[in-house]
């Protein structure tokens, strides 16, 4: 493409070169047409109106569901009316966030409806042509009626179309300068309030469960909404900076439309109203997307590496290692740390989440969600280069979730959809004695306390150090008793008593979670006899050697003499104490 065409392309797409030196330097290495296409596509993704419309429809539908669950519940009428009002008000408040897009959706639906009516009227007129059985008078009368109907439908459609255009403009205006992160945070805060409202309502257990599931779905939808937009914006900004390009000031990001005529493969919104910037065509984006995937992945990897470097800086005593793949695809990467995640000092903007850290709700252009796993401390902290991570070393860690993770997930499960639900009063219908040995019960109790600590230490507000230290001492005692007189050993529990301190508690807790299975394994093996007690060696002590028969006889004789003497003394004492009986 020559310079003139490029100039046209830049002008058409609304880009200007702001830094000629940077642009000239970088332009040699790329196809500029592809670059402009890429930037255009990224802009579309950043402010995809179709995306927000689908999202809004989805959330509004679920809000309707929340309302109907309560309205249809027969126990709900027992609730305090003020609390029902609060619940309704908060749902209304959440709907208000979608007011503009809701009007836009309604206008669009109305326009489609009116258009359908117009087509129906026209079809009836065509049918009239085909109907040869009608007499002239009836045909005339019917034609005039349908003509009137068609005109009315056309007028209604034109009005609906005009309203749609106005609503679309209002919507586009409202999303200009729109902060996706701020919007999501507000939605999350509101759905949390609605969840709190639910707790105050009298509802059947089924309805409560349905509410929880729906609220949880809404929260997930909000959390995952727009992540692609954020990533696209990051990439767009990076490319612009790299090539010294900017979107021209007279171009509104929210109103980007493709200069190419969209294909009409689907009967969607694009077909109904040509001006509407509908979903991006599949064919148009295929090649650039593949390129984007690679670039984004690299970019995310770089971000993970940056966080890794920052973590190392902020936590000098802690060992870190970047792991190739996270255990869960929702994470962008994984870093293993020798400290528990909540004990780490995090880079600015980051916060703790379950099994990881993130900055996605912070005001950042580089959102990233990182899983933080466990790393066994090596002897030399300095000798842990990032590249030394090998899949073989990582496999055991990633393949099986740690006991801590399992405990945390058990706690989460109980909080949300557990069989013993939160906030509900259960009647105890029966009670019976349990037959359980003291050792299995102790192991079970240890695991139970560990699970509860695991749940509460997920929250940084609870200082669990002292609790951990206390449990540390107890489980060490249990371990020593369980392995007494055997060769069984759990390295992690070979802790000198002096080291079981509150300062070491987080590490102790971590260690104990890891070995709970091992303790249970030892118990089972002891029970089955697989681990047998060691035979005690008989140490023959000279002082306690078996006595010869002569010695035994001599000792017996001495004992008899002593017994007789004692008997004689006792007899004399009795006589002394009873003077009248003897007549003395």
């Amino acid at each position, binding site marked *: 493409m020559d310079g003139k065409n490029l100039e046209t392309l830049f002008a058409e797409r609304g880009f200007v070169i702001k830094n000629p030196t940077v642009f000239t330097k970088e332009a040699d290495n790329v196809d500029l047409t592809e670059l402009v296409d890429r930037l255009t596509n990224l802009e579309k993704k950043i402010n995809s109106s179709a995306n927000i419309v689908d999202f809004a429809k989805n959330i509004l539908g679920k809000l309707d569901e929340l309302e109907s669950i309560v309205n249809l519940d027969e126990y709900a009428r027992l609730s305090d009316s003020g609390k029902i009002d609060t619940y309704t008000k908060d749902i209304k408040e959440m709907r208000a966030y979608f007011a503009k897009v809701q009007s836009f959706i309604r206008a669009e639906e109305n326009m489609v409806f009116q258009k359908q009516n117009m087509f129906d009227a026209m079809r009836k007129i065509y049918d009239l042509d085909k109907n040869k059985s009608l007499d002239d008078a009836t045909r005339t009368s019917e034609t005039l009626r349908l003509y009137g109907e068609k005109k009315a439908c056309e007028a209604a459609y034109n009005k609906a179309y005009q309203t749609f255009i106005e609503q679309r403009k209002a919507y586009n205006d409202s999303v200009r300068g729109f902060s996706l992160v701020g919007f999501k945070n507000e939605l999350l805060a509101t759905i949390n309030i609605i969840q709190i409202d639910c707790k105050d309502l009298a509802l059947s257990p089924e309805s409560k469960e349905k509410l929880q599931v729906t609220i949880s779905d809404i929260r997930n939808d909000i959390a995952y909404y727009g992540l692609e937009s954020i990533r696209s914006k990051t990439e767009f900004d990076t490319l612009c900076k790299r090539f010294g390009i900017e979107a021209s000031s007279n171009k509104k990001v929210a109103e980007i439309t493709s200069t190419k005529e969209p294909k009409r493969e689907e009967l969607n919104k694009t077909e109904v109203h040509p001006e509407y910037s509908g979903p991006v065509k599949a064919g148009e984006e295929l090649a650039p997307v593949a390129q984007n995937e690679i670039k984004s992945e690299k970019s995310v990897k770089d971000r993970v590496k940056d966080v890794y470097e920052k973590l190392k800086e902020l936590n000098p005593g802690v060992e870190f290692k970047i792991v190739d793949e996270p255990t869960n695809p929702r994470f962008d990467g994984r870093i293993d740390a020798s400290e528990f995640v909540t004990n780490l000092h995090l880079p600015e903007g980051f916060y703790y989440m379950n099994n990881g850290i993130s900055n996605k709700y912070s005001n950042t252009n580089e959102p990233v969600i990182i899983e933080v796993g466990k790393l066994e401390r090596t002897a030399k902290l300095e000798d842990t280069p990032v590249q030394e991570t090998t899949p073989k070393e990582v496999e055991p860690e990633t393949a099986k979730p740690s006991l801590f993770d399992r*405990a945390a997930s058990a706690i989460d499960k109980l909080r949300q959809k557990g069989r013993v639900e939160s906030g509900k009063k259960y*009647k*105890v219908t029966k009670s019976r004695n349990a037959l359980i040995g*003291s050792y299995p019960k102790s192991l079970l109790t*240890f695991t139970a306390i560990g699970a509860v600590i695991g749940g509460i230490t997920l929250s940084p507000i*609870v200082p669990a150090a002292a609790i951990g230290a206390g449990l540390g001492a*107890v489980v060490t005692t249990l371990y020593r008793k369980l392995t007494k007189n055997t060769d069984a050993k759990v390295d992690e529990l070979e802790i000198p008593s002096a080291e079981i301190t509150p300062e070491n508690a987080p590490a102790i807790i971590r260690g104990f979670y890891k070995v709970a299975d091992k303790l249970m394994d030892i118990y089972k093996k002891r029970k089955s006899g697989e681990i047998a007690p060691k035979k005690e060696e008989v140490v023959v002590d000279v002082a306690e050697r078996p006595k010869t028969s002569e010695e035994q006889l001599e000792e017996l004789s001495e004992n008899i003499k002593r017994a007789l003497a004692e008997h004689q003394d006792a007899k004399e004492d009795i006589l002394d104490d009873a003077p009248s009986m003897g007549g003395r």
Partner: protein
Amino acid sequence: MKVDTVITLDNDINCLLLEKAVYNTDNYYLSVVLDDSEEPSDEYVVLKEIVENNESYVMRVDDEATLAELVKLFTQSFGEKVRNLPDFEDAE
């Protein structure tokens, strides 16, 4: 309600009561939920005992501050029991 018993709740869930703690004059139990085959599951709950009209009810404790206090008490009581555990051969 007492430790070492299995209680059945009105939703047919069985819970084995492992430890008891008294906190602010209320009774709390560290429990494990039993599965259908009466085996301990991986669900652990702390239950608060509520007695009304001579009938026992339980409610799951979720408040983290209360849980933190209760864990201390459970650990204390558990520690006492572990110290008094007989040797393995004698116990089993």
